[in-house]
């Protein structure tokens, strides 16, 4: 690259209370470049970004913007230099309108009167959205009523409207539908054309190969290398990330068929889904594909008794289950790993041990009194079985990486020795190495006869892991494919409502 990069970080080191999280990391991004920053959870990606944006101070190294060294002490200073971050957790205030959100903290007033010029803000809001090719969002919509994808668009529009020169996107597609991803990528293309630099953080390799120009890999706080996307392939990047060959991305399945163990008959809930009938066999993995909002999670929550069904029946081992509360489902031997780990799966402020025992109170207590011995044994056994990496059972769940958090959630459900395990987006926000471990656990469970339902928006994952694939479209089953009939194309067609 002939000219100076827009942002350049050189030899960055950082430690927190004696714990070195970044060791002499180099990173740079040019104008008009989309640069992927990848690495397993805990590799130091977010710390690096926080140093770039002035949230953390570097211990060593230099940060240069347009060739000039800078020392940001506050994110506001980075913003003034045109650096914007779109965080994974959106900064949208749900009960305010789109316009109000877009001008949050930088309202336009009539002169210095403090009286808001709503007309002007509305006009600019519309212009900002149109610049991104988004015409389906009305400036007067309440932001909270919009899909996560649209909320994301508001954030991006906000970033673009400030004439940002560098936009950092942290897992921007985690909650987007495929269509929304397409339009996000169009936006990124047009940003690139306008000379804006983009730092793209994601666990999804397909996207990185689709949209990025260069990839920088971090591992355990160390700089591993920077490559042009055209010079590497999936396996090469994964090897850089985990430091070893990972082997096949999905473990071999050798499912040969079994008896039907779980069956759902014409399950319905008004306005969400209707006429849902399917079965799962012993030792089988049923993948559930569909677009975001098709009703997949809602169906699972109803099966589990978290919401009430209005029609239909649920059968396990040929017996109808009267499930009125998750506790009934658990008693019958059904486990449910929810989509949203932080708000529905884990007590984040509680210890790993507390989280694991939560579902296993029955087996570690008698007459309502907990046996500390039994509890410790169970926790130790499950943590060991799932290879949870932690300082110990008393470590708080929120201190763990995404992959390890997910392992804790799985551990808490393995304790009940489930006959049916429902996993909703089990590998979202989980790094490549831990993903493979989760697939291995699923494989091991099914070998022991556990039936698994896996909801996933990651198509390669659905295809790579499932024995059969059920596709949901607008609350109805569009199709159920056998593994050898299914491919990316016919699943997408069914998920989009086509024939």
């Amino acid at each position, binding site marked *: 690259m002939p000219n100076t990069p827009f942002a350049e970080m050189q030899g960055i080191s950082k430690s927190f*209370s*004696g714990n070195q999280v970044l060791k002499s990391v180099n990173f740079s991004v040019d104008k008009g470049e989309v640069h992927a920053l990848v690495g397993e959870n805990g590799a130091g990606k977010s710390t690096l970004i926080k140093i770039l944006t002035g949230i953390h101070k570097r211990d060593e190294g230099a940060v240069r913007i347009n060739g000039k060294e800078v020392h940001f002490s506050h994110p506001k200073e980075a913003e003034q230099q045109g650096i914007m971050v779109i965080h994974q957790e959106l900064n949208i205030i749900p009960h305010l309108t789109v316009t109000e959100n877009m001008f949050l903290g930088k309202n336009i007033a009539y002169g210095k009167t403090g009286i808001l010029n709503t007309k002007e803000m509305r006009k600019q809001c519309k212009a900002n959205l149109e610049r991104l090719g988004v015409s389906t969002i009305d400036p007067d919509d309440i932001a909270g009523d919009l899909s996560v994808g649209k909320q994301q668009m508001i954030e991006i529009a906000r970033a673009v409207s400030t004439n940002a020169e560098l936009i950092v996107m942290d897992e921007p597609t985690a909650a987007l539908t495929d269509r929304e991803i397409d339009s996000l990528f169009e936006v990124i293309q047009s940003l690139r054309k306008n000379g804006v630099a983009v730092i793209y953080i994601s666990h999804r390799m397909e996207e990185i190969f689709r949209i990025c120009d260069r990839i920088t890999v971090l591992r355990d706080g160390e700089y591993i290398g920077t490559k042009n996307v055209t010079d590497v392939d999936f396996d090469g990047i994964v090897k850089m990330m985990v430091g070893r060959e990972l082997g096949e991305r999905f473990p071999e399945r050798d499912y040969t068929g079994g008896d039907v163990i779980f069956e759902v008959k014409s399950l319905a809930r008004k306005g969400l889904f209707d006429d849902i009938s399917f079965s799962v066999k012993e030792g089988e993995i049923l993948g559930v594909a569909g677009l975001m909002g098709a009703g997949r999670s809602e169906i699972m929550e109803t099966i*589990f008794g*978290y919401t009430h069904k209005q029609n239909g029946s649920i059968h396990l081992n040929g017996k109808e289950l009267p499930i009125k*509360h*998750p*506790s009934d*489902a*658990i*008693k019958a031997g059904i486990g*449910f790993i*929810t989509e949203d780990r932080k*708000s*529905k*799966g*884990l*007590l*984040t*402020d*509680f210890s790993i041990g*507390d989280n694991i*025992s*939560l*579902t296993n*109170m029955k087996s570690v*207590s008698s007459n*309502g*009194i*907990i046996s*500390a011995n039994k509890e410790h044994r169970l926790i130790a056994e499950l943590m060991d079985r799932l290879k949870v990496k932690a300082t110990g059972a008393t470590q708080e769940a929120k201190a763990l990486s995404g992959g390890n958090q997910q392992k804790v959630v799985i551990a*808490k459900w393995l304790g009940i020795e489930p006959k049916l395990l429902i996993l909703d987006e089990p590998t979202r926000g989980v790094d490549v190495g831990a993903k493979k471990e989760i697939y291995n656990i699923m494989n091991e469970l099914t070998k022991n006869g556990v039936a698994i339902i896996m909801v996933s928006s990651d198509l390669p994952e659905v295809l790579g892991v499932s024995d059969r694939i059920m596709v949901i479209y607008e609350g109805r089953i569009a199709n159920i494919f056998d593994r050898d009939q299914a491919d990316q194309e016919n699943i997408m067609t069914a998920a989009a409502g086509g024939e």
Partner: protein
Amino acid sequence: MNWKANLFKDFSKLGPLIGLIIMVIFLGFMSDAFFTLDNILNLLRQISVNALIAFGMTFVILTAGIDLSVGSLLALGSALTAGLLTSGMDPMLAVLLGLLIGLGLGAINGLIITKGKVAPFIATLATMTVYRGATLVYTDGMPVTGLSDSFAFEMIGGGYVFGIPFPVILMLAVFLILFFVLKKTVFGRQVYAVGGNEEVSVLSGIKADRVKIWVYSLTGMLSVLAGLILTSRLNSAQPTAGEMFELDAIAAVVIGGTSLMGGRGRITGTLIGALIIGVIDNGLNLMNVSSFYQQIVKGGVILLAVLLDRKSNK
């Protein structure tokens, strides 16, 4: 975490206890009357009423709730029990019924909160007014007197066992039971879990509604137990009994380090919190400080406790 952070964390857990010890030593120097057996026992008896209510409040706050109705509930439960006593009912049976009434009034709070999906603050603000009104209606605004000359009933508020006031023994017994419940039982675990994150708890198979109803019922029962100590000592039930008691109870819980957000806290802390409030009242009285100033000191201590707690949790 390095050892310095660890040490700090440990000390912050002990914070309220250290505060209490410093206060006790200070008052010992300031007043000769403080370190007498009589005064200590008297102090413990004085705090027993607040402590009993605050123990229940700890459970409620651990589930991320609040109960403003405890004072009114205490008055209503006490008045109804007093009514039973004046009707000539066997005192022990009347006490038992009184406690059940407390349980029931608390359960009403719990039902409104869970089944009616009303925020605990609003629900108990409403029942606080209703229970107080009901007390006034029932008593016609007059104290219920002429209760019982039963030795057993007088014992509740005024008795001694091996020289220790009976209310103190009651307080310690309830403390030990509830300590065990929180630490060692499934129910205790569920209380923490529901306060930590209700959605996660329900999805883990915990019947969160049931847990909450029990927690408010427990608080109702303990409030009436506290009320019976007062009733027994005064040998009458006052219609205005328990006014503002909710504030001292919440203060004891908060000083003791239990988070109003739920899920985090200890009942040991609440006992220490109640002791701190008691020591402030008692000590300032001994030092002849005007009760006007006492309020300022008490408020200051609550603020200090919360600020220190916030710092240690950063």
